[in-house]
């Protein structure tokens, strides 16, 4: 009986040690991960991107909804990788104005990778530029609305 109890105690201890070793190895793997990715401040892509829209804020209404276009039409803006991120970041930058994807609003934000002159043919419908703010950011107006 006593031997059985001793054997069980050893199994329990082994289990405890396994749990502790697992914890240590997990900590070590996090540590190794840390060493392989040195602690450096990466370029703040979001802050830089948001900055592009700063001049636009003074031209927009203080609230309400505005449109958004990149000249490219995507099937689903919510599942389009980079395009999605750019659209979300435009909203992030332009708070408290609400930014909707599409040109069905009077004011539309144009967000382009290249200068507007090079991409203006991509804009469809009766949408005309109000002001080109540089860096591919343009305030557009839908004259049908």
């Amino acid at each position, binding site marked *: 009986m006593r031997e059985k109890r001793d054997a069980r105690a050893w199994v329990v201890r082994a289990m405890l040690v396994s749990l502790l070793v*697992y914890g240590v190895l997990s*900590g070590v793997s996090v540590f190794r991960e840390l060493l392989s990715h040195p602690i450096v401040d990466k370029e703040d892509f979001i802050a830089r991107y948001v900055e592009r829209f700063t001049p636009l804020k003074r031209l927009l209404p203080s609230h309400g909804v505005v449109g958004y276009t990149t000249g490219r039409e995507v099937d689903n803006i919510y599942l389009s990788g980079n395009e999605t991120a750019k659209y979300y970041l435009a909203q992030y930058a332009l*708070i408290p104005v609400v930014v909707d994807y599409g040109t069905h609003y009077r004011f539309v934000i144009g967000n382009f990778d290249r200068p507007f002159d090079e991409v203006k043919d991509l804009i469809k419908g009766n949408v005309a530029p109000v002001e080109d703010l540089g860096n591919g950011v343009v305030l557009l107006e839908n004259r049908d609305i």
Partner: protein
Amino acid sequence: MIGRSLISFLVPFVIGLSLVYRCARAGGKSAFLMTACLATGLGLALSSLCFFTWLVLFPGNASFAAFAAFEAITALAVAIPAVLLIKPVQWSEAMDDERPPALVSLGIYGILFFMFIINAAAFIALSRQAPHGGWDAWAIWNMRARFLFGGGQWWAGSFSKVIGWAHPDYPVLLPGIIARAWRYLGEDARAVPAIVACAYTFLTVGLLVSSLSLLRNPRIGALAGIVLLSAPLYLTCGASQYADVPLSFYYLATCVFFFLRQRCDEAAGRSLMCMAGLAAGCAAWLKNEGQLFIVLFVCARFLAAIPSRGFSKFFREMAFFAAGAFLPCLAVLYTKIRFALPAVDYAAQVTVKNMFDPGRWFGVAVEFVKRITLFGGNSVPLVPLLAAYVWIVGLRPGQRGRPEVLTACFLFCLMAIDYFSIYLFTPHDYTWMFAVNFDRLLLHLWPSAVFVLFFITLDPLTNEKKSI
């Protein structure tokens, strides 16, 4: 700036402390740490609620002095009745005091300390590499915080259905905390969301360790902390500034208050039930999943309590729970009604025909079990190891803990059924949905599951007798 930062942290802490400081009496260091963790977590949630109330009552009021005065008055309005009404917690029995060799205990504490330091360093590294957090953090939580902070009288744009991708149906506990801190600082400092995320990540560890130290013994508490931190997903999700780790904190806080009742007299037990309600209410004020948690908690308690305690005791208990959850739930209800938000996101996404598809049942079941087994983010799965631990170490007799344990088990089962049904009925590809969010759903329950697991198992270091 530093003064304002300190005050922005102190006010919530004082509010929270007024609610829970009576738990710290006569409980030693563990009770002190537990009280500090609970006070900070609850205080942050209440300060967010206070900030939201300010926005609703005085939209566009940019005066910091007026806001600070409003917050101070609200803090007093919460703290004074709390101090007068909440009963002191008298611990009715000593915790497990059988001591194993000191060297073994020291080893366990040492490993916990090592893991804490490593995880803290990793958190800082991850936060420096992605200061705005992961995608959901900046696109949902921090973006909505910017609405609350910089939106002036148009802050409610945060709930606009036009930006459905930002989950306007989610409540604003987390954006409220961040926006409030920015209000104190006077700028949208990018460090704030990371500090809030850091606070919740390590408050959860502190709460788990201290509560189990109090309810069981410090070694068990440390062991639980090691297991919690053994899942790297917990850290990465915390550093991503997602709401999942804060939600897991409020789930754990609910469980802790609920389990603490068994160690104190009836009057203090009622106060603790009220606090459990408040913690669950904070979960509801944080994320839609938290609203479901409240409902399922009540259902689980019903299933566990009715056979042994009867209807009248159950309803009396739930009255205290509801009193605690009242304010956060009122805020949730207000946002749902004012902004006409759907009650539950998934309700509109049910495809009933999936119910009659055996292939889908099988596929979802396989994926469900596989993902639970592989949970944690390590190459060697942690969950089977924990299952082996329970089997080998064994469950402790603990008649006193039984109704609480039963409630927790029912709760986990109901949550599992709910999660399963989401994947079964979704019109989307379930494998994609599993890949996107199942680990995070499990993460919500991870600290609570670790808490219950170490509460019910025997102490592997002492000679407790195995009962089953």
